[in-house]
């Protein structure tokens, strides 16, 4: 697993970044989703992967004996997934409203807010 996951993370970052650079808001959103997923996987992989050793103290022992699966990165990811999901849901709603109010989802045409007053019609 540890040999494969870095490549998966790399591919997710690369595709996510590529999609974020597109002009259509829908693609930007998909890119965002891929990027956050890639980050979660990166935190998971970087924390070290240990198979089949839950972080439980053996009977008769006072301390955890390594190696054990570190629960902290998984807690990080859980938090990050919740945050990422919430932000993504908000971003989707925002993109929908932008499409409805502006009539376009091409970021090159979303220029009303930055136009000089005399350029506005």
């Amino acid at each position, binding site marked *: 697993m540890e040999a494969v996951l870095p490549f998966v993370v790399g591919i997710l970052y690369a595709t996510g970044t590529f999609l974020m650079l597109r002009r259509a808001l829908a693609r930007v959103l998909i890119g965002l989703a891929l990027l956050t997923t890639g980050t979660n996987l*990166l*935190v998971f992989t970087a924390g070290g992967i240990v198979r089949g050793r839950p972080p439980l103290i053996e009977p008769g022992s006072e301390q955890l004996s390594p190696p054990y699966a570190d629960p902290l990165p998984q807690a*990080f990811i859980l938090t990050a997934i919740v945050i990422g999901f919430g932000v993504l849901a908000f*971003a989707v709603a925002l993109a929908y409203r932008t499409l409805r109010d*502006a009539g376009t989802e091409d970021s090159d045409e979303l220029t009303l*807010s*930055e136009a000089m007053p005399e350029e506005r019609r």
Partner: protein
Amino acid sequence: MGWAVALPIAAPLAAAAGCLLGRKLLRLQAATTVAAVLCQLGAGIALVWDVHTSGPTAVQVGGWPAGAAIPLVADMASGIMVVLASTVALLAVLFASSTIDQRRAAFGFYPLTNVLLMGVAGMVLTGDLFNLYVWVEVTLIASFVLMALGGGRMQMEGATKYVTLNVVASVLFLTGIGLIYAVAGTVSLGGLATYARHGPLGWPGEAGAMFVLAALLVKAAAFPFFWWLPASYHTPPIGVTALFAGLLTKVGVFALVRVSSLLLTAESLRDIAQGAMLAIGGVTMVAGVLGAAAHSDMRRILSFHIVSQSGYMVMGAGFMSGAGYAATLFFLGHNMAAKTGLFVAAGIMHRLAGSYDVRAIGGLMRKHPGLAVSFAVCAASLAGFPPFAGFFGKLALVQAGVAGGHYAVVAAALFTSILTLYSMTKIWHEAFWKPTPGSAGQGRSAPWPAWLALYGFATLSAAGGLAAGGLFDFARLGGEALADPAAFIAATGGERR
């Protein structure tokens, strides 16, 4: 004094819940928000006093043993920051609550403002890197909704740009945390600082530190990723903009100072980060001020100036010395008051004269001398005129820079000052001195809390200059606490997990 560390976070949380319960009672919601900010301010003053007499204090949240718990820590720097943020928030909330329209207020302006204030306090007081990320997200989500609240094409466009870039910054932040944890096996700021002081971070840790730094630079609106700010800050109602201008990029800078002072201790890493921060700071201030020169909408001019002033703070953080941190803290405080005051002034000018475009208004000097004087005080402070607070902030930054031998960026800072003056003169000349143009729109009066906020900010800018000596003593203590964080590390219970 555990309560004083937790109260700046707990009070707005309780107020946000209360505001949600009393959904229809808008006046009560406004009063609750003001009460929460007053709690923050009181706690902040208690913190500064307590840290001054008996050193940094920490609370291990949930009563878990140190090392397992997420600590909230207050040293002199964070105590000062809580006082500054809550003072500015108090006046900004007064202004925002009196100018926000009923529809936005009914759709959750007050609960969101409280969540924003909670996130800001959390960012300042947390003693844990991952927890810092969570507070950043809390603040961001609240600001996302405030930015978009009310709808309309302008706000949607602004919010789209604001959300996209800030989420990318969050991704960078989390990437950095993952890499740092992989090396150090802890995310407690105290633990990380101890780890960084006992040996090299290794390449994943160094890369992680740079990712975190980059993310916080984006939050601080530093070059080259500053354009989310001038693209969005002018789209929501002016009260929301004033609140953002006073708090958001500023706590971003504070987080940058905190993290860089704790993590970047290895000499090679420090040199690289210092070079980058000084270069970025210098380019940011010039880029921001040049952007402002092209505009005539007051909100856009002032938004570009937020970017420019962020450059000064990034520069101050980049000096990486006690004097530099002290100057940055002082400058932060001055800038929070002056910049928010200018946005409040712009909001009142819009009310009175009917437009944000300086070309379409005029004659305000004669009609509203109080407004003119308050604007002039804040603008002069921003441009760095004595005897106002901004002059001493810039003086301290320049001195710290010269003492460190960073002449190029100091020259850029002085050059930027002149251009700042140009922008402020433009608003002054057009809005105050010029006679009212024939095409001027109809204005209405501004409510008294807005005036109170304006006079408050002007008083802060003036008093900050007149009492600069005494205030700078506090800033110096804060700067020393940042430059030598041993007490901070000890207070977090900061040995390794």
